[in-house]
């Protein structure tokens, strides 16, 4: 348990990349179980929570809502009105099942970062951010080609009409790179980096507090330890906000990418 805190014995070490290295959940376990690590367990829990939430809230929806349905409806309406409709307008309803599920799943994976014992946001492992971003990217391409035709879609994005001819020399390469190369990358990395940095930040303050108040309690270090302890609490609240915000942003971007594929931008 105290490996990272006193690995070298005497000196304080700020936590680093090793925070994200998780071996198999059962170190001496069989070979076929090595994939089962703590991040995987957290993702599985997020799946379970999302599924249970969806089932409880929407299994038998009543015209007059009760209990879990009220919560589910409030969340649904929030996602629809704040994230889907601004970008998609009247197409919002069609994509809400995907958008709402994505939002909930990412939100619960992120919240694992502040839930005691779990305390690791799953998207701080980039794979869990790449998967939804990749799905959105494929969706964007498929919807664009389906709704505007292969040529129409790429022409609409790369050669937006109504501009002077010379502009296309600069604009087209920029659009090509930003829309088809950087977009999925930034979509995934924005989520990953926020969760990654947030986790390091929290771990750092927690380690400071633990080290200076418990491991090496000295008069000189006491103030630093208290500061670390207080900052841990403050940053936990801040992370909760960032985690919600990132799930929000991921969903808003998804909605806007889909909207760009449905209708050519004017």
């Amino acid at each position, binding site marked *: 348990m105290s*490996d990272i805190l006193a*690995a070298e014995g005497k000196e304080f070490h700020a936590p680093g*990349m*090793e925070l*994200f290295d998780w071996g198999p*959940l059962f170190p001496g376990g069989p070979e076929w179980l090595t994939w089962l690590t703590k991040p995987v367990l957290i993702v599985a829990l997020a*799946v379970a929570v999302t599924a249970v939430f969806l089932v409880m809230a929407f299994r038998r929806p009543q*015209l007059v809502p009760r209990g879990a349905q009220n919560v589910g409806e409030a969340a649904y309406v929030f996602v629809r009105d704040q994230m889907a409709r601004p970008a998609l307008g009247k197409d919002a*309803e069609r994509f809400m099942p995907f958008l709402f*599920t994505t939002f909930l799943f990412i939100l619960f994976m992120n919240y694992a970062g502040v839930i005691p014992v779990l305390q690791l946001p799953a998207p701080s492992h980039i794979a869990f951010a790449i998967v939804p971003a990749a799905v959105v990217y494929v969706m964007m391409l498929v919807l664009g080609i389906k709704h505007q035709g292969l040529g129409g879609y790429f022409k609409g994005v790369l050669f937006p009409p109504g501009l002077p001819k010379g502009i296309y020399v600069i604009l087209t390469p920029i659009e090509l790179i930003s829309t088809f190369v950087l977009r999925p990358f930034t979509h995934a990395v924005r989520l990953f980096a926020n969760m990654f940095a947030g986790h390091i930040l929290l771990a750092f303050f927690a380690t400071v507090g633990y080290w200076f108040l418990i491991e090496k309690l000295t008069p000189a270090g006491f103030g630093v330890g208290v500061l670390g302890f207080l900052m841990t609490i403050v940053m936990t609240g801040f992370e909760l906000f960032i985690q919600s915000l990132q799930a929000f942003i991921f969903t808003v971007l998804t909605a806007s990418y889909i909207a760009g594929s449905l209708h050519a931008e004017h």
Partner: protein
Amino acid sequence: MSNLLAAATVAAEGANNPLLPHTSELVVGGIAFAIVLFFGLRFIPKIQKTLAERTEAIEGGLNKAEEAQKQAQAALASYQAQLAEARQEASRQREKAKEEGAVIAAQIKEEAQAEARRIVEQAHAQIEADRQQALASLRAEIGTLSVDLAGRVIGESLEDSARQSRVVDRFLEELEGRAGRQEQITS
């Protein structure tokens, strides 16, 4: 379970590059996302349907309420019109009855007055007749009595009616004159 609470058991081997995804995690993430999407695509349309139905139900309810309110207002207006008409009718009837009553009262009063006048006049006439009759009979009787008396007193038969009547008239005139004088004296 040591890898549940603390990381870095493999720190000695050197940290992995955090920007490179683990293949196993990509697979797990893919499966996980597929599972949640399965639930989402299955259950979220239900709430969408319910929300749409609710919108419809509320709209329908509002329309129905509006309809009912309109009907109620129409009924109220018609009742008020009827009530006003009834009031007008009643006041008209009252006015008419009052007029008729006044006419009848005046008629009755007039009739009663006429009747009263008639009765009084009749009574006067009756009294006058009775008086005349009494006067006449009195006069005749007094005359007879007086003549009988005088005849008896003076022994003179006054059979002749003309003379008789003259004597009586004279006598009566004297009597009336006396009475007149007496009245003058007493008054």
